[in-house]
């Protein structure tokens, strides 16, 4: 832990993934003092997670080509003089102030500029049995293997949608786990639609070829148009029911078959983590291709709130290359603001080009509406408060289909995750009108649950 309850810096960065690291390294190299807050134990974020010092590497330690840029970012960050505050949970903020809990202590970061690099989390969809121990998000399995070298199980099912299924499969293989099935819910024609976005970008082309080779070597075939219907077991997952879905994602129950597994990774894409930005008052807009509600930024990554920039997934899902380029662009703009002098050439243009390329690829994997039919009336939709789909529908019928009305009516989204898991699908499942834009998440202080002591002992800002 790093002493004082109040820390001062020119720039406070939230998130030590590629966007935050790129911004922090560039800002510190430009002579500004930078403090980075992250909930993880080390730098890298979810995508470039590092093993704890001294940990044994997995038996087959292969990394995709893109991770070279991760090592470069981590090295640049370490050499830059920027400070990382790990295991830090931000629970309140206003421009120039970030209150956080760290090791049970209540702390405050005072800064002149804030950079939000808050990243994303897995898009979940409820299906019968998804609360069983051993059923996890796809991201959770990657963290397990790449962040801790823990083998998740012996026989795995990977199901969901989008490019992140591939690193999940390779992570499992590296940990020696047998991948019994790898299911992509999208119809195969989406592959052809995504292809220009892959082939037109040198980095993604290399990456796709690397994953194709890994899967081929492991003998794992990605099955398109299939997904997980249900998970079963006594106290932990023992079986999964899988089958085909139609082009809209509706399960074709006649194709269901059961496989034996002891771990399941499910991930239907990513959702931007924008709660901190919303709380700061930043405007957001809905973009289905970018994963849902995204913070609005200009070419210099300025949000609609003075002194607050946002980069990477919080501005829409785009991947590590986009995040790093946007981190550089935000840093260039902040250096210009705080230090004067000419603008470093090209950072904003490079970020815009990366963003356009990512939009072309990820637009092909927009969520399939029919997957909502995986849940039955008895399926729990809000894991925190144990609310079933039937109860959520009843609440929507009685109180209205806004996120707030459903929450008030049945407590869905009122638990400790504050709707981060169920929010993205709750309205669609509980009977929202098709085509009606989703409500913004309801955000309140504390932004994440913290100890009462943390609230009581919060340094005045």
């Amino acid at each position, binding site marked *: 832990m790093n002493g004082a309850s109040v820390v001062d810096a020119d720039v406070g960065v939230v998130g030590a993934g590629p966007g935050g690291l790129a911004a922090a390294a560039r800002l510190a190299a430009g002579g500004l003092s930078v403090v980075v807050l992250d*909930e993880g134990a080390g730098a890298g974020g979810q995508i470039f997670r590092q093993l704890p010092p001294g940990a044994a590497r997995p038996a087959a330690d292969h990394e995709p080509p893109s991770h070279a840029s991760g090592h470069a970012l981590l090295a640049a960050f370490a050499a830059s003089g920027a400070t990382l505050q790990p295991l830090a949970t931000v629970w309140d903020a206003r421009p120039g102030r970030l209150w956080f809990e760290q090791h049970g202590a209540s702390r405050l970061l005072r800064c002149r500029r804030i950079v939000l690099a808050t990243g994303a989390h897995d898009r979940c969809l409820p299906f019968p049995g998804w609360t069983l121990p051993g059923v996890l998000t796809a991201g*959770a399995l990657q963290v397990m293997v790449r962040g801790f070298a823990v083998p998740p199980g012996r026989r795995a099912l990977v199901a969901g949608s989008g490019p992140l299924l591939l690193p999940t499969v390779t992570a499992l293989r590296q940990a020696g786990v047998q991948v019994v099935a790898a299911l992509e819910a999208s119809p195969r024609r989406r592959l052809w639609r995504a292809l220009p976005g892959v082939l037109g970008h040198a980095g993604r082309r290399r990456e796709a070829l690397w994953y194709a080779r890994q899967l081929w070597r492991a003998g794992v075939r990605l099955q398109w148009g299939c997904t997980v219907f249900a998970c079963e077991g006594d106290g932990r997952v023992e079986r999964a029911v899988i089958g085909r879905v139609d082009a809209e994602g509706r399960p074709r129950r006649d194709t269901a078959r059961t496989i034996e597994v002891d771990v399941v990774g499910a991930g239907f894409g990513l959702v931007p983590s924008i709660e901190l930005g919303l709380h700061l008052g930043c405007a957001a807009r809905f973009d289905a291709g970018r994963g849902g509600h995204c913070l609005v930024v200009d070419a210099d990554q300025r949000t609609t709130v003075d002194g607050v920039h946002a980069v990477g997934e919080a501005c829409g899902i785009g991947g590590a290359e986009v995040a790093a380029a946007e981190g550089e662009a935000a840093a260039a703009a902040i250096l210009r603001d705080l230090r004067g002098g000419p603008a470093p050439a090209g950072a904003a243009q490079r970020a815009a080009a990366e963003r356009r390329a990512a939009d072309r690829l990820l637009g092909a994997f927009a969520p399939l509406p029919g997957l909502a039919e995986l849940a039955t009336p008895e399926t729990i939709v809000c*894991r925190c408060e144990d609310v079933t789909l039937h109860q959520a529908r009843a609440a929507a019928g009685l109180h209205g289909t806004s996120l707030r009305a459903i929450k008030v009516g049945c407590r869905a989204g009122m638990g400790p*995750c504050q709707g981060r898991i169920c929010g993205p699908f709750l309205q669609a499942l509980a009977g929202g009108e098709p085509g009606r834009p989703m409500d913004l998440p309801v955000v309140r202080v504390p932004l994440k649950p913290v100890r009462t002591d943390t609230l009581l002992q919060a340094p005045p800002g």
Partner: protein
Amino acid sequence: MNGDRRASVGFTFAGRAVEARAGDTVAMALWRLGERTLRHSSRDGAPRAVFCNMGVCYECLCRVDGAVVRACTTLVQDGMRVEPGGRP
């Protein structure tokens, strides 16, 4: 885990003495030991375990030395007392 050069850390889970590696989170140390269930749902008592493993979902809430914390964002430490079932 051949070649692991990390220090060994001793803690208790549900009163039972267990061992972990420094740098592991409580969630990962317990997973390594085959312990999946970290709490039971308040309504039907069904077992729950690590779900997102990155501090978002709060499924892995447990009690560490009396305080409710996320097992996936808490590092193991020597002498820690971990109890399952952390909903306040």
